[in-house]
């Protein structure tokens, strides 16, 4: 599978390594080359400095031939813009978008993006841990 990952934070870097280990062809983007230090030195995927919302960067990353695009940059709005572009303009079939704001995540899921909100998972986990600790009182 040819995968383009936008954002080389902890999640992006970890996912990139995992996908490469599984034999996928990975290109990871970040606007700041410094972020690539999170990748293991032996990481064999492609690192590309640029923004996932920028068409030139996307094309250079091979978006036109990509099977998957996942947006993991820090800003929700940027992730949404890049994902809509990957899906609507470049016809990438499998597009996944991280949207931290649970409400925005819900809205754009309704509008056809495959979104997930780590904040929502965090709230659920915190809530569960809290109720466990207090025995539900």
């Amino acid at each position: 599978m040819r995968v383009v990952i936008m954002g080389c934070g902890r999640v992006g870097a970890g996912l990139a390594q995992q996908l490469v280990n599984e034999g996928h062809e990975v290109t990871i983007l970040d606007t700041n080359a410094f972020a690539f230090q999170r990748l293991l030195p032996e990481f064999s995927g492609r690192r590309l400095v640029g923004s996932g919302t920028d068409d030139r960067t996307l094309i250079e990353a091979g978006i036109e031939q990509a099977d998957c695009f996942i947006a993991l940059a820090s800003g929700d709005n940027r992730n949404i813009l890049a994902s809509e572009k990957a899906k609507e303009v470049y016809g990438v079939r499998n597009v996944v978008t991280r949207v931290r704001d649970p409400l925005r995540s819900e809205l754009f899921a309704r509008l056809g993006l495959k979104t997930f909100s780590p904040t929502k998972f965090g709230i659920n986990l915190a809530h569960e841990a809290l109720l466990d600790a207090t025995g539900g009182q």
Partner: protein
Amino acid sequence: MYIIVVGGGIVGYGLALELQQVADTEVAIVELSASRAAQLRDELGEMVVHGDGSEIAFLEGVGARRADMVIAVTADDGANLVACQVAKHWFGVQRTVARVNDPRNEALFLKLGITTTVSAAAAVMAQIETSLPQHTLVPLMALQSAGLKVVDMRVQSGAEVSGHALRDLKFPSGVLVAVVVGPQGARVPDGDTVLVPGDEIIAVIPHEAEQRVRAMVTVEDGM
């Protein structure tokens, strides 16, 4: 009519000043930066709200549910897209207008059904003119009240700008080249657009920048 303007930069400010003059129109201007919001508030008063125009919970608080129109004019296309989609699909706002900073994003915005897309301050003004119910003409020249004016210049052979891409030109701050009219017709320029002699450019510029801009586009003839 209730209009929410997202973004209090030069375009949002100009819009707010104009919309303030329109009868039976209530305007809220949403600005993300606290210092910019405070500055705008000194001049425009209560209509300025400090907040994030793509945050659903915040928009609820400024009455997005009863808004007739949301105009997103920040310098960030992602924020503009999200503000418009949230307005339309979460709050049911009928008309949404987004400023498109990168012209390559325009087709996407249209495809997503954002009512209207625009590429420059001038076009925002034109859109509002046609969107408002009655006559309410918002002449481009009224940008003057925001310290701006629209100028129309022809690039002369041998001028400082001639043969250079827009991104390489050091125009004074606040200058927006909105339209370039060349032999192939009018186009909305991007950073790669190269100005050649004979091109006509329409730009929105701060008053104080006019002399400098004219000097860059034309050749001094000793007059």
